[in-house]
């Protein structure tokens, strides 16, 4: 059996390791445009913060490819897939497969603003991006501008203010992380960031940048302008699907897979940020581009590719964030539609500075948000993930003293 894995992020890595647990010998080719051993993408913001050094990023040793008997094709992107001939094209080069995994990940969503190719305007997706930002910081930055209040924008802003850089954040919604948290938790996060000096501005966009080689100024949609000598763009990501033949392999927002992580083409699988499967909480097709799901779907895809059938019940959006003294964890449907199908329970304890929100639908927990005392949040996340019916009064789950024991007795 010949395996080809497009992508050397954690989904591809997890898949390769799963394959090797079942098939020690089948040749594996791994194509990745980032060189070097696999590293932990979510941790690059901690490098920006200065909390860890870049040497801490790799999640596997330098011998990873050798140890697993993988032929790496690094520094290159797959350019096409020939479904009929079972080949992956890398420019002129062709790579034959019996089982193919598309784990190409996602790319930052570009912005439409004039002169966005000026120097010191960065995405924050890759290790090199942070390296570039550090370089700019070393040369001296008076004010940074962060575009977007999603996870990337938030982490960039947090990292920059931790570095002592006066920072402005432009966001489209009323509070940061509006896709991850609810209004209350979002307000708490915003307060924490603003209290540490972040300048948050809402409902604003950049129309154009200005500068001589490097960015000096941003022109905003309200006609004002803002001096800045560093810009981080965090407007979300898009699945990297440009090389996928959409007429053969079903692609929606991401590559559509079944519960074995297989696309509509037998033998072709997808996992990680590029894959679109069913969201457990929403029960609709969804792309959950998060690290733990990349590990999970990569692993399941690997087992299936190597011939051991393993089904995935779905993926679940979830996040945990620690900033200053604020801990925030969310999972599933945090902001449910106001169609009356969901029951919402909330509790806020000012004395302990905790907030909890539970979203229930049909007697099952489908979403939760918690601020403070998050140690046992995994219990709730697991409850959402397993779609277990909540027995007894669900308000018990709001208690600060909540414990796994509440569920079993």
């Amino acid at each position: 059996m010949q395996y080809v894995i497009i992508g050397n992020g954690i989904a591809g890595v997890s898949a390769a390791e799963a394959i090797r647990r079942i098939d020690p010998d089948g040749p594996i080719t791994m194509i990745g445009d980032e060189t070097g051993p696999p590293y932990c993408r979510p941790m690059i913001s901690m490098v920006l913060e200065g909390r860890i050094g870049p040497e801490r990023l790799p999640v596997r040793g330098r011998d990873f490819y050798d140890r697993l008997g993988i032929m790496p094709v690094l520094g290159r992107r797959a350019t096409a897939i020939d479904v009929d001939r079972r080949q992956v094209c890398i420019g002129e080069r062709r790579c034959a497969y019996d089982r193919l995994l598309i784990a190409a990940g996602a790319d930052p969503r570009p912005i439409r603003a004039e002169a966005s190719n000026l120097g010191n305007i960065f995405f924050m997706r890759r290790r090199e991006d942070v390296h570039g930002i550090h370089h700019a910081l070393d040369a001296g930055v008076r004010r940074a501008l962060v575009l977007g209040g999603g996870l990337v924008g938030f982490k960039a802003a947090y990292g920059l203010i931790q570095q002592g850089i006066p920072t402005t954040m432009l966001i489209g919604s009323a509070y940061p992380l509006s896709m991850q948290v609810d209004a209350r938790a979002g307000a708490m996060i915003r307060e924490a960031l603003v209290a540490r000096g972040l300048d948050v501005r809402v409902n604003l966009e950049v129309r154009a940048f200005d500068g001589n080689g490097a960015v000096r100024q941003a022109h905003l949609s309200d006609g004002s302008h803002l001096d800045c000598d560093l810009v981080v763009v965090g407007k979300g990501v898009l699945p990297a699907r440009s090389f996928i033949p959409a007429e053969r392999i079903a692609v929606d927002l991401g590559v559509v897979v079944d519960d074995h992580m297989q696309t509509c083409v037998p033998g072709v699988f997808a996992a990680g940020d590029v894959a679109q499967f069913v969201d457990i909480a929403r029960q609709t097709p969804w792309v959950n581009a998060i690290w733990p799901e990349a590990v999970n779907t990569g692993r399941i895809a690997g087992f299936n590719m190597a011939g051991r059938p393993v089904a995935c019940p779905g993926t679940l959006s979830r996040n945990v964030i620690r900033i200053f003294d604020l801990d925030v964890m969310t999972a599933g449907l945090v902001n449910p539609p106001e169609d009356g199908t969901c029951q919402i329970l909330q509790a806020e304890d000012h004395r302990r500075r905790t907030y909890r929100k539970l979203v229930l639908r049909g007697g099952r927990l489908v979403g939760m948000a918690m601020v403070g005392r998050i140690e046992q949040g995994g219990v709730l996340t697991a409850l959402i993930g397993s779609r277990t019916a909540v027995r007894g009064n669900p308000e018990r789950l709001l208690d600060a003293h909540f414990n796994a024991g509440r569920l079993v007795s």
Partner: protein
Amino acid sequence: MKKVIVHPERCVGCMQCMLACAAAHSRSGTLLGALGEAPLPRSRIHVGVGAFDEGFPNRCRHCDPAPCMLACLPGAIYRDASSGTVLVDADRCINCASCAMACPYGVIRYHAVWDGPPEKIVAVKCDNCLARQAQGLVPACVEICKSGALTFEAPDRAARRRTDEVARSVSSGAICPPPAPGFALLAAHKRARAEVPAG
């Protein structure tokens, strides 16, 4: 191989296992000594409450596959091959709480430990008292538990014992009183109290 087996139906909620666990994971290894230490040691077994406020000893199951291990960003959580124990490498841990989000039992805590990097907050969890086991001792929580809620035994033996107990209790003609009538009475009282309709 022996493992710590939890029998929640026997937990009286005295929390002595928590004291013993904290003391066992202190620099001095004794309760009185531990009280003066910085950082203060903390328990890795967590006695919480069940539906009617009865005790519930909550402890790492050392799952396989371990969700915390899969979720760990820096790869700080690993399995000790010889004992199957899931451990945290305090030096690699970045205190991101990804493991808190992954653990379905909620048994990981975050604080500094005396034998970890100084003053660094790290993920802390049950280590099966491997250090004590190396000295021929049973895990501290088991040693202190006098009600049989925590035992250290081979899992198959524990399972057999449990099967026998269930078989005895359902066999016709065999009149077996509950193992602890007083405890059953207290539990029934608490259950009744929890079920009193609110006014």
